[in-house]
């Protein structure tokens, strides 16, 4: 075989390939020398054409990738018959692929001189690329030779080379993509990837220490230890923590972990392979000794960190007080406002500007009058502007007309209150019907809430009255009492502790009201101490619904927020809690509300989720300043809304997301308001005003003053009626639990309700009859519905379609169909 090869190989062409490869290598070396003679990292000295060609590399590489792979695929179809009619095609494709590979390689070498790539990976990419180009070319020459000389004995050699080059081009492509997009660009999207849930990611980057034989600094040891504890907390504490001590082993404390379990030591410092802990987490999950025995195997990265930690002597510094969980600072912070520019004066904009500069984002132009009016009306009062309002507003020439409009909207007391009532009803789980009322175990607070919103009760006072309530406002802390025995973590005092901390502090105590939290540093006793404030007597601590016989006093969650007199009566404790909660020093309290209002208006909070205030905001300064400013400004919610909506930041063009999960991403970048979908109430109210009432006066469950007179409107705001299948399908929650955001996705059940639901269709029918009488002609109806629902005229193409529906003499059926279509357009339902 060797002999044959030697004698029969096409020398001329081989020489050609080899010499071109040598040329490439020379080019590589000379370029190296060139770059080295310049400042490191700069390629500016490189001739422009070379730089240009270099930058074409990422584009050009797609040719060899596609061509070589395609050639290899086609080759597979020729296994039975080498001289298949595919052969000439394969030859051309392979030739093109080989040439493209050579050219790409040269371009790649040019590009590499610009620098900026991770060296190890770049080297790997480079040499796979060069090898692929070479092998591909040889494969082509072989093929040419085989065909010309009919050397059948070389076929399998040729095929091997072709397939190697296909694999090589794929590998080179992968390395290249990793260079461009990062190593885990593709794999990070997979649910089983470690990066998919970044919660256990810490500050400690093991790769920087890999080859470092030196001792860790104290700081490094702490960081590493924190990282290890985070891994243990998320994967092991459930069975080897304070609650369950399986195998007599606890991993949550220094003394316990080194003591080991029933089988002896599990960590031998300096000896990972001898440590049972490392051995068992490394086993395949099918192995009987594998840990965790329930749940997922640890990621390779986590295992590597544990290994490294043990290798480094398993440091667990005594002074290691640092929590593994992020806890946001409690105190208020009032950063100095950036200096105003000639273009920007609203403080919100100054902070946004700072953020934009830092993130290299350009200010887009603010939205036009029409879009602004629609957006701000829906956001502030939950209604659409009428065509007359729109006309008046666009015609208004005053430069401050937007600010004037915002004031006017905020002053429409009942419209404003009815809109924000829904948002607060969700958060305070206040409803007219629901569980608990049947046995007197629940109290409605609508009258208090509506009037508080209407009078713009300052937020500190608002919360004080909810926490230390009168009969009218006691519903929130009294919670829902089901008849019968309930789980200890759901007694009404604990419900109050959970809901007060979630709604007013963005803190989740739900875990902690049953056992010490695995996901924060809060302890069971903290939850009980907080719940005791809402109780006449001290509650017996239950762990996972089992009485422990232990008791604790009444305490704030943060001792900095002041004391509670444990021995005092409930009403005294509640008064103390109310005062402590709203004190200016409670920065978290003010940040929480500012973030909620921000989220309402901007479609996403500065912090997300809005109930997890320990997460990082996308601009800490903006949040801190706004919260401090809000507190100093008498905690005036309307003023806060005014400040936010008069900003250019609010008036930026809206941004749509392809994927709703991006909303809560911690890598979120702010570019403008995120598009929202109308809530159930907004949709009903708007449809009621432009077509016909969905809810009428007789359905009111609460009657504000304006609904009592003879001039009362015939239609009712959806926030004032009992929940019903129509509103439920559009996302109004049942309010069994507090909730702070609505589902904005559509689903089949909702679509069915809107397609053939009685309530919706009855409304449309009623409207069609009235419109037919009032407007008579198709043209007028089309004009009116477009202007009222969409705030614009129909484009000619739309007009044609609408006319197809209505005909010249519109029937009520036809008008119904047009209404239905318009109301279901995303353009109508989305707040943009």
């Amino acid at each position, binding site marked *: 075989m060797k002999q044959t090869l030697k004698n029969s190989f096409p020398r001329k062409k081989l020489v050609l390939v080899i010499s071109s490869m040598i040329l490439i290598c020379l080019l590589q070396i000379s370029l190296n020398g060139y770059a080295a003679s310049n400042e490191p990292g700069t390629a500016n000295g490189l001739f422009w054409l070379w730089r240009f060609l270099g930058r074409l590399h990422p584009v050009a590489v797609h040719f060899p990738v596609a061509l070589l792979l395609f050639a290899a695929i086609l080759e597979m179809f020729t296994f039975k018959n080498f001289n298949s009619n595919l052969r000439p095609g394969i030859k051309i494709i392979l030739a093109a692929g080989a040439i493209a590979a050579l050219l790409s390689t040269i371009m790649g070498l040019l590009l590499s001189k610009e620098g900026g790539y991770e060296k190890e990976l770049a080297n790997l990419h480079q040499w796979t690329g060069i090898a692929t180009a070479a092998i591909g070319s040889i494969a082509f020459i072989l093929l040419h030779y085989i065909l010309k000389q009919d050397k059948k004995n070389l076929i399998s050699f040729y095929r091997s080379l072709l397939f190697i080059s296909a694999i090589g081009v794929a590998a080179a492509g992968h390395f290249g993509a990793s260079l461009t997009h990062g190593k885990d660009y593709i794999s990070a999207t997979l649910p089983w990837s470690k990066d998919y849930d970044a919660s256990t990611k810490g500050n400690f980057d093991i790769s920087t220490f890999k080859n470092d034989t030196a001792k860790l600094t104290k700081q490094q040891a702490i960081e590493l230890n924190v990282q290890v504890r985070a891994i243990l907390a998320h994967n092991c504490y459930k069975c080897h923590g304070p609650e369950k001590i399986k195998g007599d082993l606890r991993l949550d404390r220094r003394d316990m972990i080194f003591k080991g379990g029933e089988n002896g030591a599990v960590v031998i410092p300096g000896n990972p392979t001898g440590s049972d802990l490392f051995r068992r987490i490394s086993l395949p999950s099918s192995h009987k000794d594998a840990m965790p025995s329930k749940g997922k195997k640890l990621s390779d990265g986590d295992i590597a960190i544990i290994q490294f930690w043990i290798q480094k002597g398993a440091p667990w510094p005594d002074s290691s007080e640092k929590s593994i969980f992020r806890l946001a600072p409690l105190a208020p912070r009032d950063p100095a406002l950036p200096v105003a520019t000639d273009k920007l004066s609203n403080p919100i904009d100054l902070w946004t500007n700072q953020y934009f500069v830092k993130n290299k984002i350009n200010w887009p132009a603010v939205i036009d009058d029409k879009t602004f009016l629609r957006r701000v009306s829906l956001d502030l009062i939950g209604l659409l502007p009428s065509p007359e309002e729109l006309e008046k507003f666009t015609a208004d020439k005053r430069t401050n007309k937007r600010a004037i409009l915002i004031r006017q909207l905020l002053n429409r007391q009942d419209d404003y209150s009815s809109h924000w009532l829904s948002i607060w009803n969700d958060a305070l789980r206040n409803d007219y019907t629901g569980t608990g009322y049947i046995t007197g175990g629940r109290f409605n607070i609508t009258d208090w809430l509506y009037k508080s919103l209407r009078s713009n009760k300052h937020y500190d006072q608002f919360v004080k009255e909810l926490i230390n309530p009168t009969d009218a406002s006691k519903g929130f802390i009294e919670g829902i009492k*089901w008849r019968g025995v309930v789980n200890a973590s759901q007694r009404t005092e604990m419900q109050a502790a959970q809901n007060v901390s979630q709604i007013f502090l963005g803190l989740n105590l739900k875990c902690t009201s049953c056992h010490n939290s695995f996901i924060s540093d809060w302890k069971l006793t903290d939850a009980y101490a907080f719940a005791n404030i809402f109780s006449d007597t001290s509650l017996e601590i239950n762990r996972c619904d089992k009485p422990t016989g232990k008791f604790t006093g009444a305490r704030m969650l943060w001792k900095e927020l002041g004391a509670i007199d444990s021995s005092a009566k409930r009403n005294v404790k509640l008064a103390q809690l109310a005062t402590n909660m709203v004190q200016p020093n409670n920065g978290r309290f003010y940040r929480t509300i500012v973030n909620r209002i921000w989220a309402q208006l901007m479609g996403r909070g500065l912090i997300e989720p809005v109930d997890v205030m320990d997460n990082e905001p996308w601009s800490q300064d903006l949040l801190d300043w706004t919260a401090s400013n809000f507190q100093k400004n008498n905690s005036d919610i309307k003023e806060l809304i005014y400040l936010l909506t008069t900003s250019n930041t609010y008036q930026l063009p809206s941004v749509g997301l*392809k994927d709703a999960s991006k909303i809560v991403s911690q890598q979120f970048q702010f570019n403008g308001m995120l598009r929202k979908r109308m809530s159930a109430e907004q949709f009903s109210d708007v449809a009621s005003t432009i077509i016909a009432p969905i809810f009428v006066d007789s359905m009111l469950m609460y009657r504000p003053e304006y609904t009592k007179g003879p001039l009362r409107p015939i239609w009712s705001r959806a926030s004032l009626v009992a929940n019903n299948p129509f509103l439920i399908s559009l996302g109004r929650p049942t309010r*069994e639990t507090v909730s702070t955001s609505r589902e904005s996705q559509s689903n089949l059940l909702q679509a069915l309700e809107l397609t053939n639901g009685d309530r919706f269709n009855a409304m449309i029918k009623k409207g069609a009859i009235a419109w037919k009488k009032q407007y008579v002609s198709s043209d007028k109806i089309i004009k009116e519905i477009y202007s009222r629902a969409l705030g614009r005229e129909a484009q000619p193409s739309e007009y044609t379609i609408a006319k197809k529906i209505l005909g010249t003499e519109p029937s009520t059926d036809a008008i119904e169909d047009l209404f239905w279509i318009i109301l279901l357009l995303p353009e109508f339902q989305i707040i943009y």
Partner: protein
Amino acid sequence: MNHHWNRREFLKGSSTAAIAALAAGAPLAGFLASCNTSKIKATADTVILLWMGGGMAHTDTFDPKKYTPFTKGMMANDVLSTFKSVPTILDDVYFSEGLESIGKVMDKGTVIRSYVAGDMGHILHSRHQYHWHTCYKPPQSVAAPHIGSWISNQLGPVNSVIPAFIDIGQRFSLGEGEELKAFHTAGFLGNEFGPFLIPDPSAGLESVKPPVGMNINRFEKRNQLYNELMSKSPIGEMGSDYQKESMRRSMEQAYILLKSPEAAAFDLTKEPKESYDIYNTGKFGLGCLMARRLTEKGARFISVTTEYEPFKNWDTHDNGHTRLVDMKKQIDGPIAQLIKDLDRSGHLDRTLVILASEFSRDMMVEGRPELKVQEQVNQPDIIQELKNYGMHRHFTDGCSMLMFGGGIKKGNVYGKTADERPCKTVDKPIRIEQIHQTIYHALGIPQDTHYVIEKRPFYTTPDGLGKAEMDLFS
């Protein structure tokens, strides 16, 4: 336009929507893909739950004890059953009089006589029903999903145009309606997986046909023009938002369902008269008929209830004996026919039919013997009137269930209650976690299926505990 929705597409679509929905909502946040660590081979594709809401007395239905006929002045404590026992097709297995037809199909299923209901103190039916349907005791700090929603979420529909979770026969305008709503929900899984409600099966078709007064031509035209206008709308140029995308998709699904031939499954008038008549014992019977028709067209989870209304139907606080005569008439024929029909058409092999109630009843014991709750029914020790003759107190320690098909043992009796008062479970007690896991197991849903909600794992059954009862499977 020609639509070809296959199951995979629908599943894919619905799960991305769910993920997105979950991620978007703060109460739903902290979501992680649910864990499916182990593969189980499913023995069922469809579940039909026949719900005897209100508390069905085991000693007067599927677990009869010594019969004591009514006489004036009789001792209440002597009465264990108010009906005669009648034989079933199984040797030495007896049911209570009035359940003869079901007795005759017991060669196709299992009677469970040892279900032990949850302990929740003071009896509130809806609370125990919440527990039965969600496996969690209310209240909960996150909204717990109905078992039908879990199944819908995990498996999607069998036939893409038939909603995955259909609930037949319950109205929510009655007493405790709000409490019933609290568990007739997909909870944190999101509305997408909520129940498709058909309160009245004879009007079931209304829910799945174009609006009243709209013929199919107009319906099609409307939809076509909707799509045309949507494509012309300038907001269409703003790229594809997830909201817009989900609206478009769901409207299309609704449209397809409403004009699909499968919608006829909801139309009971299409059923041949002789068959219709057997089922037509009232709302429940027709519900069984609809369940059968939907199963044949590809349904995932269907609940049919005798309907819970305080002091009505199975909620016998008085006249227990008399009222059970009627209740049995309602259920006996339709259930037997449902089993026979499914068996004949071959669907029973892949359909798990379950009959259950939130708890049982007894004449004397309230709650359970060692853990008595406050007495809620006044029962005289000496019975003078017929109205006091019956099982009127709420009993949780021994309840009967039936299971047919979907891999369940045939001709089997599982568990046992005592033959003397208290007629409590004495062998193989089985609880709600095991029942749920058994259902999930039959469907191939792993035991540790869960979501992470607010950073806490929320399992199909609390803490992922409870094991499928393998003894129930053949």
